[in-house]
């Protein structure tokens, strides 16, 4: 009975505490993604493990200037998470599982045909393959966060032609736009194969 008495006695404090917790939870729910993206999963954090050599040394890309057009101001450059962490509350969790190496750990158990066949793939290439596969699988969802197909202003005819064809053939960004940022890794010749649903 004492516990109920004490609860009653300190009900204001408890209510306030509960209210604070609820506010914190709600706040955390709302803040989880923006805080993670903007303050926790910063490029500097990523670069704690992902070193400079992963970026293309020829054009001196850096983690803070990885995907630039020449005219674009530095502050408009995307950061690591813009490309590698899909938007969304639940997706934000991947940042933490990645920090804890969960996804890397499971990633190494992913189905990689060449490795299954016994061919050794350099870790850098394996990473590129894995990430590209993911971007292909999710239809370039991180690319599309910034690049809205209908709003792209093409500079040359080839862009118009290629995108028209890509739309017709339901191709996704990474099938053409690869080796843009990181140290170049050749695309596997059997990459980007859609599942033939007729065989399923």
């Amino acid at each position, binding site marked *: 009975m004492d516990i109920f008495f004490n609860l009653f006695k300190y009900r204001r404090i408890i209510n306030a505490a509960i209210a604070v917790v609820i506010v914190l939870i709600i706040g955390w729910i709302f803040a989880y993604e923006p805080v993670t993206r903007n303050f926790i999963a910063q490029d500097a954090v990523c670069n704690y493990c992902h070193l400079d050599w992963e970026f293309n040394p020829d054009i001196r890309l850096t983690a803070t200037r990885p995907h630039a057009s020449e005219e674009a101001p530095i502050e408009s450059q995307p950061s690591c998470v813009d490309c590698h962490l899909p938007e969304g509350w639940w997706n934000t969790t991947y940042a933490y599982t990645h920090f804890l190496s969960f996804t890397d750990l499971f990633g190494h158990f992913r189905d990689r045909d060449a490795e299954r066949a016994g061919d050794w793939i350099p870790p850098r290439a394996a990473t590129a393959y894995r990430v590209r596969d993911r971007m292909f699988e999710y239809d370039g969802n991180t690319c599309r966060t910034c690049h809205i197909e209908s709003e792209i202003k093409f500079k*040359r*005819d*080839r862009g118009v*032609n*290629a995108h028209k*064809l890509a739309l017709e053939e339901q191709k996704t960004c990474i*099938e*053409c*736009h*690869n*080796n843009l940022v990181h140290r*170049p890794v*050749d*695309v596997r*010749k059997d*990459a*980007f194969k859609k599942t033939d649903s007729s065989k399923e």
Partner: protein
Amino acid sequence: MKSDNRRKKFAFGSLPLIAGIFGITVTMGGGSALAGVADVDWSSVPTKTIKLFWPGQATYQWLRSPEHKRANLQTIEGQACTACHLNEEEEMGNKLVVENDLEPMPVEGKNGVIDLKFQVAYDSEDAYFRFQWKTLNDYAGTAHPYLRYNGEEWKAFGYPKLDEVVQDGEQPGIYEDRMSMMIDDGSVENFATQGCWVSCHDGQRDNPDRPSKAEVMDNPLFKALKKKDVRKYLPSTRTDENASWDMGKTQEEIAAIKAAGGFLDLMQWRGHRSNPVGMSDDFYVLEYRNSDAGKNPFSSNVNKKTQEPKYMFDESKVGKKSVRIEDIRKMETTLIRETNAVPFDANVDWKEGDLIPKYLVSREDSKGSAADNNRSKGVWKDGVWTVVWARKLGLTNPDDKALVEGGVYTFGFATHDDNITTRGHHVSFPMTIGFGAKADIEATKLD
């Protein structure tokens, strides 16, 4: 009956009339050259303007490499060049013609693009082609390398402009103008989508990774072919995925591909070596750029033993036994065996600077499938070549792509302009031509 009448008009006996129509002065024979196409009313045939552009060293291998950004995998899968590059001929030509990764030997003053006006018609017996293009130079490209007497011996004189000796100023740029057609009937993989680029490879003359003469001659395929350099070939004749020049299949395998029609027809009208006798040559591309069976209208005029010319000009016809550099492009300097040539006489008092053509041309000596294109003629006027060309329908030679009514064929066009050869041409993307069938360009049926 109308067709029969036209056939009659094609007869060589009508040459003076036809020559008159063209304003052609046949100064050195090759007179029985024209026939046929002069009778076509080209004003009733639609004209298509085709952009020809400078391709640089964009070889089959480069197109499939990561350097061909965002498109190498698609190219491997057979995606058409025009999937991305439609209407980009001008931009690409102008970009590639100056020094860049794909052009290590830029030619000074070279234009990136040429507008080719193209017309095509046919009747029950022939296909007729008409090409018009403006040349870079204010003279017709009718000169071709010569043998020059230097006071002691005869040495090659004049080279194409991609050659170092020309770029270094050691030799003048001299080479004939050309108009080329490559044709497929659907038998060659990727030609419909990637056109001439399926035949252009690393290792070829003026392309990257060119092997030495010894390396070529040491290769089993080239040893069998008795060839000393690498020229156009099809990937189907190579064993490796990258279609390397030195990975040729066996002669038996290649013969089987040919028998199945897996080759390209390649025909070239030549300002020096075929036009003066009213012809174009006839080749096909398979494991090499091969001549059709028989004999083309030109051959070497170099005596391999003595390194002297085999023939010289007939003084009674030409007014001189040889020409001088000041004669080049001012007069026709083609040496035609049956018209203006006599066997070379080493005892003539040759003077330093005397020039005799390096090639001998003959309509009479041409024969077989290689002589199929014996009715073509080009006239250069006011800076524009106009080439008309007839080709028989329904040819049955095993080294020809037979054009037939109802057929659709993929064509690639190229012109060599301004003293140049090999890859120094302006090329088109592939396009289809239908003879009584739907296609990119539909040939006009003549009554």
